[in-house]
């Protein structure tokens, strides 16, 4: 399996791979998984004043999954919720040069973020 330099960078030092503390004001959590694909994602977002003040993720999955979740967490933080809701996992995949056979896993990232919006 080949990994793009962007995947290597994000996988080696993922951004916002953490848990936001309980009691954080405006905290919402969303999860998605696919056991057959061996992927589980959890996103936590702090929503305040229509803005994603903080984003955090946890991930069990391949390097592409971890890297893409890191990119998405980075992208979400500081963004207006209305804008953040337009997250496009395919664009993230293209940015990271993720092979097409990994798309099914990475769409779970979109699902986990969507679950955050439902929980909001």
């Amino acid at each position, binding site marked *: *399996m080949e*990994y793009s330099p962007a995947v290597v960078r994000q*996988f080696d030092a*993922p951004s916002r*791979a953490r*848990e936001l503390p309980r009691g954080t004001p405006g905290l919402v959590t969303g999860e998605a*998984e696919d*056991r057959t694909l*061996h992927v*589980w994602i*959890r996103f936590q977002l702090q929503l305040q004043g229509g803005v994603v003040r903080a984003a955090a993720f*946890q*991930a*069990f*999955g*391949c*390097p592409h*999954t*971890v890297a893409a979740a890191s990119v998405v967490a980075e992208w979400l933080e500081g963004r207006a919720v209305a804008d953040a809701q337009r997250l496009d996992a395919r664009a993230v995949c293209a940015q990271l040069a993720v092979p097409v056979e990994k798309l099914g896993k990475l769409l779970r990232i979109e699902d986990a973020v969507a679950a955050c919006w439902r929980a909001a």
Partner: protein
Amino acid sequence: MSGEIYLDYAATAPVDPAVSAAMAECLALDFGNPSSTHGAGRRARQLVETARERIGARVGASPDRLIFTSGATESNNLALQGVLRRSRAKRVHFVTSRIEHKSVLDVARALEGAGVAVTYVAATSGGWIEPARVLEAITADTQLVSIMHVNNETGVIQDVEGVGAACRARGVLFHVDAAQSAGKVPLALDSSPIDLCSLTAHKLCGPKGVGALYVAPRVTLVPQLHGGEQERGLRAGTLATHQIVGMGKAYELADPQREAPRLAALRDRLWDALRAIDGARQNGDPHRRAAHILNVTFPGIDGESLRFALRDLAVSAGSACAADSPEASHVLMGLGLSDVLAGSSLRFSVGRFTADDEIGRAAAQVAAAVARLRAVAKSAPAWCSA
């Protein structure tokens, strides 16, 4: 080898300098075709026969029972297809195990397509093929049983003497894939109940692309390659003299009595360090294992991520021959592991040039990678660890 620590001797081993020197000398000086009758040919033939003697001495076989091939995969193909495709019986049955190497299992599947009935005997959770289970699988139509000596993923040593004796009592031929054991575990083929045995050079600090098949006197095979009478008509093609010389040298240098204790000590030190990682567990019965292989599961870690995090450490997820496949190891799943846990497992294999200090450094790299990846998946559900 840059800064990489090489712990993948079960995939292949660095060529011993004495082997490459012997091969280089052969390439430079002894270019003759061993089948030719002139001087150059006779000199090359002498090198081939010396190599055959050295290999025979290492595995306890009369040199004239050894047929040179391109490696264990070809040897396995020649053994299985050579026996089972020669049969004129209406019903032909073959017995093997579920944890064999792909070069046996894929041949078995191809033979099934040609009408051969195949029974795949299950392993115990310790990776052990019980001889009694093999015996139970034998029917009146069984013509061949194939069980590997040392499993390439777990290192478990199978009771080939026991299985072979049972086969012989039933008049069934017995093939052993000894790719992982030859030169590492003592073998005495001529005095064993083994009829066919596949050997390779490159797992033993020899060159890739050369191997041999031991064929006991009572066995007849149909050749799989046509186009020459080399190797008693069983394997057509000009003999690769320099490769054979390299294999002969590798088998001469290998000495399980001398090397195995040191390799076992390295392996045990590695396990002593890795067992400190929370949840780490060995795969394969540790009391029946060859000295050079250690297979460990690290629950809660995605296997692909673990291997990538450890990209400066040369280890395998399982068989190197299946490394390009995204599927989890059929061997570990055959021991009862889930596909998740099989994916979270690494095979470490040590060898002649593994340095003592590499063991501690490798274990530290694994511990750091596991800790980092577990931190990223700290709240993951139970199925990620089960």
